[in-house]
């Protein structure tokens, strides 16, 4: 079986520049030779502390960064061969801070209509307009558990949890096969985190959505991911099934992360 997504020896360096002419002074190695593969419907958890490269990896997958070296394959095809539109409709991302990822000047209808238009372009159809567009938006809203009478509302009218739902709806609008969730609940109210985590597991089942969960919180990743990839300073420390790693980790760094989880949450 061809994995849906495969990463081969991904490395990423960011240039450090300085002085008047932005001379290149050196490079920061954010990611070094990281490989993994992800089958359809599977979920992979990326764990690590800040600076471990986990967000960089997520951003490379969404083509927000171009890796310094290494290759990405989609359904067996190298990423370079895929038209950007096809990639964008295949992989979508949600971010830690939903407030910052939503344009405050756009209404809910406009925010969701944009990716719906993108989907229509991929499917070589006319983008929906008028009543059809509003229906499609309502359908999206109800799929993430939001009320359907909020089409003319703006992001500031929602709570943190509702904003994250809206961001998830926007990501789902293009019917992606892979969803990258970067710290999906870190900025969400404590009493709403379970709602968002349940929504993510529902979506995983309902749409057979392949997911990549990025978090520093092992309990969040352990809850959502079938497999784990533990990163430190841009390098893979350990990878394997979630249950196996939790039961018997072989790596001292993973051990340290596990020990940092308070007994209450073990």
């Amino acid at each position, binding site marked *: 079986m061809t994995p849906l997504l495969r990463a081969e020896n991904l490395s990423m360096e960011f240039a450090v520049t300085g002085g008047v002419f932005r001379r290149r002074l050196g490079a920061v190695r954010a990611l070094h030779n990281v490989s993994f593969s992800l089958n359809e419907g599977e979920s992979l958890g990326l764990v690590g*502390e*800040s600076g471990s490269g986990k967000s960089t990896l997520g951003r490379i997958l969404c083509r927000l960064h171009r890796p310094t070296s290494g290759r990405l394959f989609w359904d067996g095809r190298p990423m370079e061969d895929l038209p950007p539109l096809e990639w964008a409709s295949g992989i979508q991302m949600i971010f830690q801070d939903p407030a910052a990822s939503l344009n405050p000047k756009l209404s809910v209808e406009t925010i969701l209509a944009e990716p719906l238009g993108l989907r229509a372009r991929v499917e070589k159809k006319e983008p929906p307009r008028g009543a059809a567009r509003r229906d499609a938006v309502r359908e999206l809203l109800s799929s993430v558990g939001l009320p359907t009478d909020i089409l003319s509302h703006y992001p500031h009218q929602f*709570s*943190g*949890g*509702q904003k994250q739902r809206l961001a998830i709806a926007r990501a789902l609008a293009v019917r992606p096969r892979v969803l990258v969730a970067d710290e999906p609940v870190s900025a969400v*109210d*404590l*009493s*709403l*985190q*379970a*709602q968002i*985590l*349940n929504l993510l*597991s529902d979506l995983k089942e309902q749409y057979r959505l392949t997911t990549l969960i990025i978090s*520093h919180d*092992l*309990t*969040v990743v*352990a*809850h*959502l991911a079938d497999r784990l990839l533990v990163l430190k300073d841009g390098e893979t420390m350990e990878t394997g099934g979630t249950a196996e790693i*939790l039961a018997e980790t072989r790596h001292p760094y993973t051990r*340290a*992360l*596990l020990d*940092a*989880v*308070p*007994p*209450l*949450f*073990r």
Partner: protein
Amino acid sequence: MADPLLKIENLSVDYRRHGKRVHAVRDVSLELNEGETLGVVGESGCGKSTLAMAVLRLLPDRDSRIPGGKIFFRSQDLLALDAEPLRRIRGGQIAVIFQDPFSALNPVLTVGDQLEESMEVHGGGRDRAKTLSLLERVRLPDPERIYRAYPHQISGGQRQRACLALAIANRPALLIADEPTTALDVTLQKEILDLLDGLRRDLKMAILFITHNMGLVSQRTDRLAVMYAGEIVERGKTADVMSAPLHPYTAALLRSLPRLHKSAGKLPIIPGQPPDLSAVPGGCPFHPRCPRVFDPCAEHIPALLPHEGRSVSCHLYHSPVAAGR
């Protein structure tokens, strides 16, 4: 027993926001004894930071108001103090560390300068050897270098240690720690909390932890107050509250958080969302989300009353008639 170190009595705090009154803290009472650790835990917007700011008298004068209540520190009424005696207490007997150590430090002064300035203001004078020993005390490597460094030249963990050195410089009796480790990596969090534990024992300092982190309070506090929508809903010994929460909010919140070794599947959620503090529902503020809601909840505000060795504000334990409300 001696008077508590800190005593908060029926404190309320309002903000004015967009012409509306926001009731950030409502009728909160708390006591903290010398050398004790108390956790005030709740989600964002529950009023826990406002409470801390009120104790430090750091609430903005223009937009906030204290309609009622008293705060006693060593039997001295903090709310009645003038600027000068207040300044001697703040940074002296009461110190604070915040979530973001970078914005808590002055970017144009070296770490050494800031420490010495604080000790000078509180009558200690400038003493390089003493400053260096403080830096050692918070386990900063290479104190000489840190002494001369500006905040941007040291790492996040080192900055929080520098803030801690600044906080303990004048041997406070009370340290208010407002989300002290939220901005730090998990492995660093443990180091800072261990350090805090040690300092508390050595200096016989009381700590008031303000946090949303249930794991932190479960491990690091003697007693605990759970806040929801500006009110304390449950208060008691940490071990008691964590092992057998009485208030439906505490119980539901603890149940809803993911565990490492629980099978996947669904988490038990709390429906709805926390209320807007300018329009808190009548009766018990948690009643629209409560799994155990019954008749009196929408009508009567429950009082925080003793029950089985702790305090809880819920009609399940105290009938509104008996409570006289």
